[in-house]
């Protein structure tokens, strides 16, 4: 059936696009979390990642593979993955699960902008988790971070979280094609533990794993954060931050492309809400 004649929506200006991304993203984020209690947030996104960090920090201490700074700073940046990968995945996956995907795709606005906006609150969430985890674990394990490094560390964690959220959105886009996004996101989070070099120094990993890690989020952000925490200035961390930003942009473009392709394919085969 062909759709009836409709009035085309007015073109989006830059400000309206920004509003669609931010306000739309925040509303979608609240829809996921506003009916739950803070205990879920604290337990899942703050306590769980903290213990993940402690697990690897104590393992690292016992095996004497690297010092505390390596594990604490690296894992603190990595903790953003939980919110960003699962959040980004569910930003698309839950629309399908709750039967609202069709409504979103019927929107006369750019779905690319709508979905890219979904990733922003999760990136903010990931940044918050990383900051809390770094603060608490540093206090617990006695790591001193130079005050001058704090702004750079925040920047590293922000860039890492954003890249990770777009990575999650890319996985979420796959949810339009494949049935079970939970498998994809769970395996992805586990692989990030291994391939980002956060827990095993890259010199101890096989070359191909290091190469794959270069194209994953967090790898460069964690390295930048370690340099900053070690007292190197922002100029020393800038190249790694630039690479992390590139990775993030790459995943944002990939997510937008996949969403476009799978949306078109889902419309063509009428498989939009098929679970």
């Amino acid at each position, binding site marked *: 059936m062909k759709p009836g004649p409709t009035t085309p929506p007015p073109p989006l200006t830059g400000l309206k696009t920004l509003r669609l991304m931010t306000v739309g993203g925040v509303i979608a984020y609240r829809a996921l979390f506003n009916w739950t209690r803070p*205990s879920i947030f604290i*337990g*899942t996104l703050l306590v*769980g990642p903290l*213990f*993940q960090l402690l697990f690897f920090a104590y393992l690292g201490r*016992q095996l004497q593979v690297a010092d505390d700074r390596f594990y604490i700073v690296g894992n603190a940046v990595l903790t953003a993955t939980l919110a960003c990968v699962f959040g980004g995945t569910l930003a698309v996956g839950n629309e399908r699960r709750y039967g609202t995907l069709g409504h979103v795709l019927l929107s006369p606005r750019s779905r690319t902008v709508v979905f890219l906006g979904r990733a922003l609150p999760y990136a903010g969430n990931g940044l918050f988790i990383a900051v809390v985890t770094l603060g608490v674990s540093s206090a617990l394990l006695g790591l001193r971070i130079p005050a001058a490094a704090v702004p750079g560390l925040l920047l590293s964690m922000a860039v890492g979280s954003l890249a990770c959220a777009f990575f999650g959105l890319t996985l979420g886009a796959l949810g339009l094609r494949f049935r079970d996004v939970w498998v994809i996101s*769970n395996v992805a989070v586990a*692989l990030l533990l291994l391939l980002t070099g956060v827990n095993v120094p890259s010199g101890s990993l096989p070359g191909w794993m290091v190469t794959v890690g270069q194209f994953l989020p967090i790898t460069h952000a964690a390295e930048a954060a370690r340099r900053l925490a070690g007292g190197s200035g922002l100029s020393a961390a800038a190249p790694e931050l630039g690479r992390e930003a590139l990775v993030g942009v790459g995943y944002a473009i990939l997510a937008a492309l996949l969403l476009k392709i799978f949306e078109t394919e889902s419309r063509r085969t009428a498989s939009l809400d098929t679970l």
Partner: protein
Amino acid sequence: MLALGTLTHVKQMSHSPFEVTIALVVPIVQATLAVYLFRAGQEQHRLIEAAVGAGLMGVWSSVLFGSGGAIQNQRWQGTLEMIMLAPRRPVLVILPITVATGLTGTYSLLATLAWGRILYGIRLEFAHPFAFVVAAVVCIVALGMFGLLLASTFVLMRNANALANTLEYPIWLVSGMLVPITVLPAWTGPIAAVLPTTWGARALREATTGGPVWPAVGVCLGISVLCLVFGSISLTYVERRARAAATLALA
């Protein structure tokens, strides 16, 4: 009835692509991580411990998420009322589910051992092979009983999922599955001592390396029986309360 119930639930869980994939892939990734970490730390002689530890971590994840959500899952599937209507004590109905989560968790243990042998050439030489098998069986049954306690207490909480998400790494850490308990702060000792996971992990490690296996197996069994008793009492209480308040099918 317990055996048939367990078999039924193992079959059901084994048909879930999600359960099987997660039980196989995630522990293998963790085992790979452990192998490279142990190699980096010049602890090549302990690679088999790393593989066993990573496998046991997978068993715990399976029990934690499977048993913790056992009752909730039945509720979502719409089968909770039917199984609670069975003319048997609730514990006999729920225990097979929680033991089944431990049994499906053995996929993780087997996968990490096979992975270590095939890819990293880890020689599967156990100091006490027979004791290792016994310890593995006891560990799985014990975790199933611990799972019953989790299932019966988690059902009382609205936010049980959050608690389950929170408990994965702490139990891995405190039980000494990969990190020796000796490197942890002293205050974690009493917590570790009351967890069946600690004694199960110790029994498997001793059977692998050649230490005294049976004391750890005995303590693991003892704690798991306590879990069974407390889980049974809690489950009976929950069932009566849910019947009286007509909230069995409600979250």
